[in-house]
């Protein structure tokens, strides 16, 4: 028979965490779901409008543009992150001198705040004052409109995203690569296989769990991109680098269309929830650490 104290103790210990989750997570989530079926400016009483917000959503060219931008951005930057972080890890696990130094150098940008990452590159890529255009023009090239040309701006946002995230996933890949037994490689070497053969037939198949995890984690992070573009392009030029989170923020807080913003949020939630469930399955419901 457990004492009263021992039975009540766990609940007391959990109380602060659960209260915060309830008040600042589950309640707003449920409330947001309800708001999405209403017309609401945040001040006057809500007006129930059923599915109107959702039907309007799919005819709203601004929202569809931000949705399209988010998808293009995600589809291009996630493989970029995956390939570059894997490539960095592969290079560093090849018995390189100073490998600790290189690893630190590649990891470093992941620790800088996203806002500063955005500012750094905005300063580097300034059209008529940036060092990059200086180097280009001093070699006789044409100054590039990095942040005002739609295609270039999207390219810059993708590049900077990869720059700031590759090191993080590199560390995961290094751990994954180190866990592959050396004997596979030794055996294949005796059989005379090349580096690429080893990569295709040993490394990639055995690295599959890490690859899938990096894929999901980076997708979830990339879809939510907002601070980076806030500092780098402000979503411009002409909304070409405006992604969903920024659109939701502007609709909710600048245009005061709370109901409509919540409907947009529901779309984002569905996308993220599917991905997060995938992540749970891969990490066996948190039993195994996310890394």
């Amino acid at each position, binding site marked *: 028979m457990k004492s009263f104290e021992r039975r009540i103790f766990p609940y007391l210990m*959990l109380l602060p965490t659960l209260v915060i989750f309830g008040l600042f997570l589950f309640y707003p989530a449920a409330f947001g779901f309800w708001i999405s079926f209403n017309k609401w400016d945040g001040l006057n009483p809500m007006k129930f409008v059923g599915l109107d917000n959702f039907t309007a959503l799919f005819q709203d060219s601004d929202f569809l543009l931000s949705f399209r931008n988010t998808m293009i951005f995600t589809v291009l930057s996630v493989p970029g992150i995956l390939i570059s972080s894997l490539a960095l890890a592969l290079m560093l696990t*090849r018995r390189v001198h100073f490998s600790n130094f290189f690893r630190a*150098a590649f990891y470093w940008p992941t*620790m800088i705040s996203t*806002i500063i990452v955005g500012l750094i590159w905005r300063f580097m890529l300034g059209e008529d004052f940036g060092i990059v255009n200086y180097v280009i023009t001093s070699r006789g090239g044409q100054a590039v409109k990095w942040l005002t040309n739609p295609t270039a701006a999207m390219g810059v946002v993708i590049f900077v995203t990869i720059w700031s995230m590759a090191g993080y996933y590199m560390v995961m890949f290094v751990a994954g690569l180190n866990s592959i037994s050396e004997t596979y490689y030794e055996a294949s070497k005796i059989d005379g296989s090349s580096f690429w053969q080893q990569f295709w037939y040993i490394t990639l198949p055995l690295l599959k769990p890490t690859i899938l995890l990096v894929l999901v984690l980076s997708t979830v992070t990339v879809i939510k991109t907002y601070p980076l573009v806030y500092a780098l392009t402000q979503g411009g030029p002409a909304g070409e680098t405006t992604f969903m989170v920024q659109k939701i923020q502007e609709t909710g807080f600048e245009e005061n269309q709370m109901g409509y913003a919540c409907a947009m*949020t529901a779309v984002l939630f569905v996308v993220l929830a599917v991905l997060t469930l995938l992540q749970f399955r891969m990490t066996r419901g948190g039993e195994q650490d996310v890394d």
Partner: protein
Amino acid sequence: MSTEIGKNKISRAVLYLVLIVLTFIFVFPVIWIIGSSFKDTGELFAWPPTLFGNHPTFDNYVTAFSQGDFSIYFFNTVFTSVVATILTIIINVMAGYVFAKYRFKGSKVLFGITLATLMVPLEVIMVPIFKVIVATNLYNSLWGLIIPAAASPTAVFLVRQYYIGIPDAYMEAARIDGASEFMIFNRIMLPLAKPVISVLCIFSFMWRWNDFLWPKLVINNENLYTIQLALANFSGEFNVDWTSLLSMSAISMIPVIIVFVALQKYIIGGMTIGGVKE
């Protein structure tokens, strides 16, 4: 045989060359920013550009601290990060410990609920949480940055994992000696968690220090800006004042640099906490 060694040497040389170029790409932008923060307005945009300017000066830093409101933003950020980290550690270690060491009614459900919070990132509840923040009097208050984000599912998992690895025998022995449950936690189990607590401290501090979205939602009063919020808002102005932006950015990177240097061996050892970086 000798050709193979020759080929090998060439491929190693190429590998090092690639690594050096990549290091440049990853490190140079940060060095460029720090260097430029020592230039005055004239030199900042001078062509040809130089790394630290011809007359490096601390003026930008002095101006940022004395004239601008940078010292206020700095204080707000330090206060928020330190207090939030302490609170985060306390409540999440408590929760993670209980999930690892106690069996009680509803423990599975409650753990499931904690897991489920991962599916509701802040981005998804921005609009309704704003209403909650206002209703709880946390709008335009630094506590609004500290309290709502203190409970972290990732931290709970991490602590739980850690405690699962610690034998129950410690607790049993203390119980026989008549220690209360709280005493067991406070005197025995908490000190044992030092490694995981230090990891959490660092990540929690970094996350708060660098965070943008919470301050963006909660703070509107300029006297309560954090550094990141100030940087973001000033960079959106029509005439961007690069000299002060650069010195502010450089200062706000100092704790990051310290943590980075101190933590290098862990990073190199392959330490990551999924999801803690927001």
